[in-house]
């Protein structure tokens, strides 16, 4: 197959930038840990009472670290409000008791999908006090647009 000289230049440049881009992405993901939430733990969504999600809420792990176990459901989260002091790092562990939801804190990097039968995880350090809104951004039924919760970050 004959390739025109300009086409060779064009394709070399194009494929070269693609390789560079994917390499940057790979290095940031695997060497610097910039990875999307991909937790592999599963849970029986029909029997959450018998799992670690039997009493959802916040639990202190050490001085500045908290774990928030939350259950998403149509059309809200359990619990509907959580409270942590400013400067704390919160490890979110979230599952769903019914359909597919999401968990997103606008203005932060927190944004993940919540699928029934699986636990998804992410963490975030709250450096500013105030009230943070959490939204579901994945269609989950007729009341989807009302699905939200609050995180109070106290000074």
């Amino acid at each position, binding site marked *: *197959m004959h390739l025109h000289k300009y086409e060779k230049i064009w394709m070399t440049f194009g494929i070269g930038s693609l390789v560079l881009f994917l390499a940057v992405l790979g290095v940031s993901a695997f060497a610097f840990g910039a990875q999307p939430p991909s937790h592999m733990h599963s849970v029986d969504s029909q029997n959450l009472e018998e799992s670690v999600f039997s009493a959802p809420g916040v639990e202190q792990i050490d001085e500045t670290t908290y774990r928030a176990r939350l259950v998403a459901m149509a059309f809200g989260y359990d619990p509907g409000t959580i409270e942590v002091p400013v400067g704390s790092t919160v490890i979110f562990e979230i599952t769903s008791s019914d359909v597919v939801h999401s968990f997103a804190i606008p203005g932060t990097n927190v944004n993940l999908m919540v*699928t029934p*039968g699986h636990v998804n995880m992410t963490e975030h350090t709250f450096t500013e006090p105030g009230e943070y809104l959490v939204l579901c951004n994945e269609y989950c039924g007729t009341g989807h647009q009302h699905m939200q919760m609050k995180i109070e970050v106290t000074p």
Partner: protein
Amino acid sequence: MMNQSNLAFKNNHYEPEIGVDPRDGKLAFYYVVIAFSAFLLGILGGLLQGLSRGGMIELPSWLGYYQILTAHGVLLALVFTTYIIYGFLYAGMSRTHGAFSPRLRKTGWIGFILTSLGTGMATVMILANEASVLYTFYAPLQAHYIFYFGLVFFIVGTWVTGIPMLVHYFKWKKTHPGEPAPLFGFMTTATILLWIIAGLGVAATVIGQMIPWALGMTDEINVVLSRSLFWYFGHPLVYFWIMPAYMVWYLVVPKVIGGKLFSASLAKLAFVLFLLFSIPVGFHHQLMESGISVFWKYVQTILTFVVVVPSLLTAFSIFATFEQTGRE
């Protein structure tokens, strides 16, 4: 003299001068009619959504926002696109490879009827508010089982109409040994193959998971698996839309501007690459999901971006065709 007419034949080779047989044109016409009917209904849904979200109108109590959203998605993303593409491919195959044989044409009609039956079933269920699950199906939100059966008829019907187009192309190759086949047929074959391979994913989740569950035969559904199977289809779906558009760029644009295609072999290469790279790329719709490891997400991200290669080939080819024609 003989020699000259032979030469003329050779030059025109990729575009034999034969029209669309009226009997084939009829089927293509019906595809296009349904396509635009779905389009009109679908954009009406979009308009209503915009007006209601903007607070300009209040939707009546019997009409749900997500119900219209589902109609909008299914009618525009699945029905309009598939019908217009099939009309285009079917008419184009008849135009470039000659009329279909009566048997192939009959198979084409059977597929059309199956697809349309499925479209009707799904549309009725959406309008009855029994299937407000959006066009991505969103299991474990559940629709009426008639909606799922409609989807199966829709997909299988398109496969049935796809077969006569593939057979028509290979028959042409058999009866014209040693001649390069019209590019339209090569591209149609790649597009139909891509559609069949992609459709396996959605057929698997609908037949294997959603129908038994909607009928009450199973009481649970593996959500992440159903999403992966859907997106195995849902991403190549966009290539299925792109490829006919590329066919217009590669084959129609040069004719419109009175030039000729820059390189037929590069055009073929682009379509083969589209077909190959369409297969395992759906995970990028599940990047924020648990249950799929970071490694596989990265592998599929790479495979997704590789589609840049056939797109760059196409971009070069289009501009080269313009430039070449401009200099003549």
